[in-house]
C-alpha cells in the first residue's frame, strides 16, 4: 500500500476515523438508552 492510499480522503488518520465511528456507536446507544428510559 502506498502512502497516498494510507491517508483518508477526510480526517487526519484512519485510526481517528475508526474512533469516530465507534465513538458514535457508544454515544447513540447511550442516547437511545436515555430516550427509552425517559418515555417508557
Amino acid at each position, binding site marked *: 500500500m502506498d502512502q497516498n492510499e494510507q491517508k483518508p480522503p477526510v480526517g487526519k488518520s484512519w485510526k481517528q476515523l475508526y474512533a469516530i*465511528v465507534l465513538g458514535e*456507536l457508544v454515544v447513540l446507544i447511550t442516547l437511545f438508552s436515555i430516550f427509552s428510559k425517559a*418515555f*417508557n
Partner: protein
Amino acid sequence: MSILDWAVLCSTLAFIVIYGIWKTRQQQDINSYLLGNKEAKWFTVALSIMATQASAITFLSAPGQAFVDGMRFVQFYFGLPIAMVVLSSVVVPIYHKMNVYTAYEYLEKRFDLKTRTFTAILFLTQRGLAAGFTIFAPSLILSSLLGWNINITNIVIGVIVTAYTVIGGTKAVNQTQKLQMAVIFVGMLIAGVLVVQMLPDEISFSNALHIAGVAGKLNAVDFEFDPTSKYNVWSGIIGGFFLAMSYFGTDQSQVQRYLSGASIAQSRLALLFNGMIKIPMQFLILFIGAMVFVFYYFNPSPIIFNKVALTEATEKVDGFDKLQKEYAHQMKERESSALDYAAALNFGNKEEIATTKSHLMVENAKTVALKSEIIEKVEKQAPEVDVNDTNYIFLNFVIEYLPQGLIGLLIAVILSASMSSTSSEINALASTTIIDIYKRILKKDGSDQHYLTASKMVSVGWGLYAILFATFANKLGSLIEAVNILGSLVYGVILGVFSIAFFFKKIGSKPTFYAAIISEGIIIYLFFFTEVPFLWYNVIGCLSVILFSLIFSYFMKEEVRMNEE
C-alpha cells in the same frame, strides 16, 4: 391514485432510469462493466452500499415493526459499525490489492478452486432466490393496497431494473442508486414531518412521545442479556456484528459495490460512512412507525391493515362487522384517555399525570386484548386469511392520509428501494456467474468483448429469472420463507471460511473445507432441533468453522498456497 400521483411517480422513476443510462452510455470492456473502471468516489460507493442493503421491505416493514413491536429492532444494527471498521481496516485492502472481481475469486488464490466454486454456488443459489423476492414483496403489498395487478407490477419493476443494469452495468447501478437514495431520504423525511403535523392540535410533539412511551413503543434499548430474546443490545452487537461481517464482507452484491471504489481509501471511507449513517437512519424510520402508531389513536384504525385480508375476514368470519364496531368503540375510549393524559401533561400536575397515565395503560391493554381476541377468531374461522399485516401499516397510512402528489412520491420511494437492491443483485449474480464459473471453468480463452457480451446476456438471464420467480412466488409461500432461512443457514459458515482466509494465514484449504462441512451440519441441527434464534446461527457457524479448522490443521499438515502480504 390521482393523476398528480401518477405524474410524480412516473416522472421520478423515468428520470432516474434515463439519467443512469445516459451517464453510463460509453461502456467498453469487462472491467468498466463489472467494476465501473474502479472510478467511483467514496460518497457514490457509500450511497450504493446503503441502497443495496435497503430494499423496499426496509421502508415498508420497519415503520410497521415499530408500530407493532416498538423501536427495539434498531438494536439489530448495533454490530454494523464495528463490522464496518473491521472490513475497512482488514478486508478492503486485501480485495483491492489482489485486484479481484469477486469475493470468491480471492478464495481460490488463498485456498483452491473447489472452495471458490463451493462458495460462489452458495451465493448464486441464495442470492438468486432473494432477487426474485426483492421484486415480489413490494408488488404484493402495492397490489393489495392499490389494487394493482401483481404480475404486471412484477414485470414492470423487473424489466426496468434489468434494462438499465444490462445497459450500464455497475456504473449505471451506482449512478441510479445515488438518485434513488435521494428520493428515499426526501420521501421518508416528508412522511415523518407530516405524521407529526397531522396529529390533533391539542397533542404536542412531546405529548406524542409520552403516549408512544406509555404503549412501550419507544423501547429502543434493552440491556438485559436473554439469549432467547430476538433483539437486545447484546444480540444486536454480537449477532449483528457477525451478520454484517458476512453480508458486507462475503456477499458479492455488497463486495462489488466497494470494489468499484477509485482506491482503497475511497472504498474504506464509504464503508465507514455507512457505519455512521445506518443506525440513525433506521432509528428515524422506526420513529416514523412509532408516530404512525400515535396518529392512529386519533384517526380510525382498521383491525387488519391488509385490505385484501380485511375483506376476506369480513366475508368469512361470523359477526365480523359487529367486532369491528366493538373495536372502533374501544379505540374511541383509548383516544379519550390519550387526550386526558396529554391535557394532564400540559397542565403539569403530577398526581393527575399519574392517574391519567394508568387509565391510558388500562385502555391500551384492553385494546390489545380485544384485537388479539378478534385476530384469534379470524385465524380459527378463516385460517387462510393472512392476518400478519406489519408490512401494510405504513403504506396504508400513506395512501389513506397523505396529500395528493406525496402518495406518488412515497410509492416512488418504495419502487426505488426495490429497484436499487435488485439492480445490485442482478449485477453481482452476473459477475459471479461470468468470473467464477464461466470464465474460470467453462471458457478460459475468450476475448474481453466476448466476456462483456456474455456478462450482458447473463444479466438478462438473471433479470428474467428474478421476474419469473417473483411471478410464481405467490404460489410458493413456503419457498419464500425458505429463502430467508437459507440465508441465515449459510452466511455464518461462509463468514467462517473467509475469516480463516483473512486472519489465519497458516491454515490451508483442507482443514477449512472439512470444518465448513461439519459446521454446516451443526447449523442444520440447530435449525431443526433447537429454539436458537436465527441471528445466532451467524455467530455459531463462523466460530465453529474457525474452531474445527484450527483442530484439523493440527493433524493435516499441508502447504498454504499463498499469502497476500
